């Protein structure tokens, strides 16, 4: 049951990305191109996602524990450190450059484009590099 629901969760996420057009880097880059071929769709994707997630999280967290875990793993940090800002800034440059972020890139992998393969390969390298750089004591994943 647990495995099937996790699979469905991944499938819903991937299908949502495809349906919303976010698996298409051109659409993402067009959202980011305010002074060119602007396409506001991405704002609707985030809006649609937040409209479901916000009440959903609120409802779910009325439970003492999740269904298949003994606790909610919620991020507890509230400070703005240099890592958060530098990380987000770096992420944004890469996102704008390629039009891909991790979800759409992984979802696009079966579409078999060489560009996606290259992006995923270096993305995994970048992630491992950051894990080496980040000290375990401060590495508290929000995601």
């Amino acid at each position, binding site marked *: 049951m647990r495995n099937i629901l996790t699979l469905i969760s*991944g499938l819903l*996420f991937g299908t949502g990305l*495809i349906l919303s057009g976010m698996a298409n880097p051109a659409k993402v880059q067009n959202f980011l191109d305010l002074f060119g*071929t602007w396409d506001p769709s991405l704002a609707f994707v985030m809006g649609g996602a937040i409209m479901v997630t916000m009440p959903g999280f609120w409802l779910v967290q009325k439970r003492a524990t999740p269904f298949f875990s003994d606790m909610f793993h919620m991020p507890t940090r509230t400070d*703005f450190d240099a890592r958060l800002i530098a*990380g987000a800034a770096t992420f944004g440059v890469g996102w704008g450059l390629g039009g891909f972020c991790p979800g759409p890139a992984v*979802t696009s992998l079966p579409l078999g484009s060489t560009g996606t393969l290259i992006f995923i390969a270096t993305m995994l390298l970048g992630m491992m590099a950051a894990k080496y750089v980040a000290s375990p004591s401060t590495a508290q994943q929000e995601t």
Partner: protein
Amino acid sequence: METEFTPITSLLGGALIGLSAVLLMAMHGRIAGISGIVARMLPPSADKAGLPQGIIFVFGLLIAAPLWIALTGTIPDQVISAGGPALAIAGLLVGFGSVLGNGCTSGHGVCGISRGSARSIVATITFMATAFVTVFIIRHIVGS
């Protein structure tokens, strides 16, 4: 190149992403951040206990496009305008930045904002800002 503004399908697709995030939170008590889920599977300090569920979730992502093609008979539109070297750099920056900043578009942008996290709101504003500037540079300064 231009893409068509798709408010309805984008809103619906977004809602599916939200549903996925709520399902993951209800089951595992975890944020549906793709960068976090993928990064936790990688060395060093791979999360061995969470590995099976991570693999199953990623497998779900991977079968979405083949299922979409099988059920709708259409291949999702995809135009990747960046060349190989640019994509290689983009991947490095996205991977490194998302782990350093503890999140990406899904973890900070969707889940973080949904739970009112100030860190996620700041992160989202930051990556949106650098992404807007990057696209401006590649399309209107370098590209023109």
